[in-house]
Structures are given as structure tokens and as C-alpha cells.
């Protein structure tokens, strides 16, 4: 493994047949973005999708938003719509891919990744169909042209793949508790079989703990905390007034009728978490289908950025809220910081740790822990160990 390809190691401390403490060690390079200092902001937003290729749309758009905030640039409504479409597409492809890659192992099955072959080309084709010059993340906005034919070929295969994954229409499955219940009980396909196993194992509420959901705009103090964080402690282990917030599907979808009902029944356990992922997929697909009707070209390319300022860029990425903080001085990046959702969700005092503390120690402990990690969906590999205390 190369030093850049980090991971999470979760150690479950056992005493009296229970998990009494959860230690999470991350080797993620949370301070690497410091080295973006000195670069031109356009160069940074061009570099970000390659550096963070697996969530490259969210990273680059968070970077563009931070630079725009610093310079007082307001991208046009059309630019915002086109960016939102690209982001929704990444959310859909990332969720699809993580289900195809990670969920089979939770049922002791081998993954079949062949359906995933279409996912990344869709992301690239969508970028090209909207921004032929490749400047989709340019601060202020790129040259927006719409290739309607190419754009029209993005969502249908993705919708078909999702129907294949869920063996049905995900928006209908999450439309009512009774439909969701029937699908869990009798549905075909990997997600239905996984949720059926969760229910049959009595694990719908496994991992439930007190939840502190991330506000839509992020922590109110994030700007000051990032600015003061010279040592990187906040980036590695963020908090809001001492509390570790949860971000991601459950945080964003907790008011969805199906998810709210499951939360009331199970707390923030596995079943509401997986249902929230499905609700998020359904909502993203619907929004993308609505947006694609309204995307159109923009006649005047916006001006190039330049100047000085401090800015924040917030993007709701597939795994939660992604925040970039930038300081610009005379058109160059002076400081650059990235706060990623995994730092909240896999914080040593975050929802994974809280959900595993108190879990019963038996043969299925690691499997249950892996289920909870999969429901929270880290952006890097996560492995579990146990430590037996006397």
C-alpha cells in the first residue's frame, strides 16, 4: 500500500463479554491539502479531481465554491444547476458502486462488479456534455454548453442499473413503510437480501446511539475553527462545542417519512441507516431527472478569478458534508484545508464508536461492526480488530 492510500483501523476493546471502548486510528492524510498553498486557484480546482478521483466532483466543486466565497464571486443560476447535476450524478454512482463492491461481503458473497463498468464513464460523459472545455469546476463558472443528445444518455442507464441493483424502483420502495416492508421481506437483489438478513437477525436497531445531525450549512463555527487549526487537530478530529456531529444519508434524510418512522422504531440503528441510503438515492435520482430538463448553455463565460480573501466551500457529497477552506492572497492560494465527512462519522467519539460501544461480544460481533461501518460508508478501507481486557 502506498502512503497516500490510507485506511481506518477500529479496535473493539472487550471486557465482560461486551465492547467497552472503541479505538479508531486513521492514517488519512488530513493535512496534505496544506501543500496546495502557492498555487493558482484554477490550478487547484483542476488538480483536485485527479487527487481525489473517487469523489472528484465533490472535491473540485467544494474547491470552486471556497474560492468563489473568498473572492465574492457568485456563479450564475445555470452554472449552479449544472454543477448540482454533476454532483448528484457522483452521489448516485458512488452509492451504486459502494453497494456493488461492499455489500456482497456482508452476505459472504463475492461481488460482481461488471455492472459498475458504466459508472465512471457516465460521470466523465456528463462533464463533457455540459462543459466541453473540461472547465466544469472553474471558479466563477466554466464555458457551459449543453450537448443535449449526450446528456440525454446519462440517466437512463444509471436508472436501469439502480433498478437492477434494487430489483425494483427505489423511489417506489421507499415511498411507504408497507412497500419497504414487503420489499425487505420478499424482494430480490442484494440490498433486499441484506436488509432481510438484518431484520431476521434482530439487528434493525443495532448501532443505535444518540445522534447529533450535521446542520445543512455545517457547523456554525467551522470558519473560525479551520482558521485557528494550525496543527491539524480539528481537521483530524472535528467537533462542534464538544459534540461530534454525524453527516451523510441519515443526517440528510432523517425527516423522510420512511426513515423517520424507522428512527422512531429502532433509533439510529442499521435499518434506518440503510433505508436512508435508499431514500437518498431515490431523491438524488428524482432531482437529477428534474434538473436535466432545465440545463442550458450560458452565453457569456465568467471572468477569471483573482484577488485576496478567505472563503469556505460546502458540498453535500455522497458520504456527507465536505468543507474546503481557502485563503487567497493576490490571486494565489495561501492556505488550503479540507474537512471530510469521514472525520466526523469515524471520529473516535462519533457515530460508529458510539454505536459499537456496549455491543455484545459473540461470534457475530465483527460482522455486525462491518455492517455498521458499511451503513456509515467510509471513504477509505476500514478494518476491525479486537482487544480482550482482563
Amino acid at each position, binding site marked *: 500500500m502506498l502512503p497516500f492510500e490510507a485506511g481506518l483501523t477500529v479496535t473493539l476493546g472487550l471486557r465482560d463479554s461486551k465492547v467497552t471502548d472503541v479505538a479508531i486510528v486513521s492514517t*488519512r492524510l488530513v493535512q496534505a491539502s496544506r501543500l496546495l498553498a502557492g498555487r493558482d486557484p484554477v490550478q487547484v480546482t483542476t488538480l483536485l479531481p485527479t487527487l481525489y478521483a473517487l469523489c472528484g466532483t465533490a472535491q473540485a466543486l467544494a474547491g470552486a465554491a471556497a474560492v468563489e466565497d473568498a473572492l465574492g464571486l457568485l456563479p450564475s443560476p445555470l452554472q449552479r444547476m449544472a454543477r448540482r447535476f454533476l454532483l448528484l450524478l457522483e452521489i448516485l454512482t458512488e452509492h451504486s458502486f459502494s453497494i456493488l463492491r461492499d455489500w456482497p461481503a456482508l452476505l459472504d458473497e463475492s461481488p460482481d462488479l461488471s455492472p459498475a463498468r458504466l459508472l465512471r464513464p457516465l460521470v466523465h460523459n456528463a462533464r463533457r456534455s455540459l462543459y466541453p472545455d473540461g472547465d466544469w469546476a472553474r471558479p466563477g463558472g466554466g464555458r457551459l454548453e449543453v450537448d443535449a443528445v449526450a446528456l440525454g444518455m446519462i440517466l437512463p442507464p444509471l436508472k436501469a442499473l439502480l433498478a437492477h441493483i434494487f430489483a425494483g424502483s427505489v423511489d417506489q420502495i421507499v415511498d411507504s413503510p408497507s412497500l419497504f416492508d414487503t420489499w425487505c421481506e420478499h424482494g430480490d437483489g442484494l440490498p433486499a437480501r441484506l436488509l432481510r438478513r438484518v431484520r431476521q437477525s434482530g439487528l434493525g436497531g443495532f448501532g443505535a446511539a444518540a445522534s447529533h445531525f450535521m446542520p445543512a450549512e455545517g457547523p456554525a463555527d467551522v470558519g473560525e475553527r479551520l482558521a485557528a487549526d494550525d496543527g491539524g487537530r480539528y481537521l483530524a478530529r472535528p467537533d462542534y462545542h464538544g459534540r461530534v456531529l454525524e453527516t451523510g444519508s441519515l443526517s440528510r434524510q432523517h425527516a423522510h417519512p420512511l426513515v423517520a418512522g424507522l428512527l422512531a422504531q429502532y433509533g439510529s440503528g442499521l435499518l434506518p441507516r440503510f433505508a436512508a441510503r435508499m431514500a437518498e438515492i431515490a431523491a438524488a435520482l428524482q432531482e437529477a431527472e428534474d434538473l436535466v430538463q432545465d440545463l442550458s448553455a450560458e452565453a457569456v463565460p465568467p471572468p477569471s478569478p483573482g484577488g485576496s480573501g478567505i472563503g469556505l466551500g460546502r458540498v453535500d457529497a455522497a458520504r456527507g458534508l465536505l468543507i474546503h477552506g481557502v485563503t487567497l492572497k493576490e490571486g494565489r492560494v495561501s492556505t488550503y484545508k479540507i474537512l471530510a465527512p469521514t472525520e466526523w462519522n469515524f471520529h473516535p467519539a462519533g457515530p460508529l464508536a458510539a454505536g459499537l460501544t456496549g455491543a455484545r461480544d459473540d461470534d457475530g460481533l465483527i460482522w455486525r461492526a462491518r455492517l455498521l461501518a458499511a451503513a456509515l460508508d467510509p471513504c477509505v478501507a476500514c478494518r476491525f480488530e479486537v482487544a480482550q481486557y482482563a
Partner: protein
Amino acid sequence: MCMAVPSRIVAMENGSATVEAFGALRTTSLMLLDEQVQVGDYVILGAGGNFAAEKVEPERALEALAYLTEILASGQA
């Protein structure tokens, strides 16, 4: 926020490739690529390195590798 390391293909055989980055050689599946690749091309690997996720243009790959080299030199990695 998994950082992606552009890796250069040094050999190909039966749908797999041997790729090199920072002196490390790895074998990776090409099954998820929709573009044709050849020896000398750069690809980005998915999490865990088991498969190539996408082909990257050489100039983008070299720019990213230069940045990653700076990270290594700084002691951040």
C-alpha cells in the same frame, strides 16, 4: 477522502495490468475501464488497488504525481 495515485502501466496480460507508482509495482484488474489502455498509460486505482478505476491523461497524472511527491518530501505521508 482517499487520495488517488496515478499509476503507470508497465505490463498487461489477460485483463490485468502491472502498474508502477513511487517505485511500487502492483497488479490490478482492468475490467472496470471502458477505454482502451496500453503500456505507458496512467490509471487511477480504486480503493484497495484491486482495479483500475479510470485512465488519466499524462499531463494530469504528472501534475498529481508532482504534488504527491511534495507531500512525501514534506513528511505529511
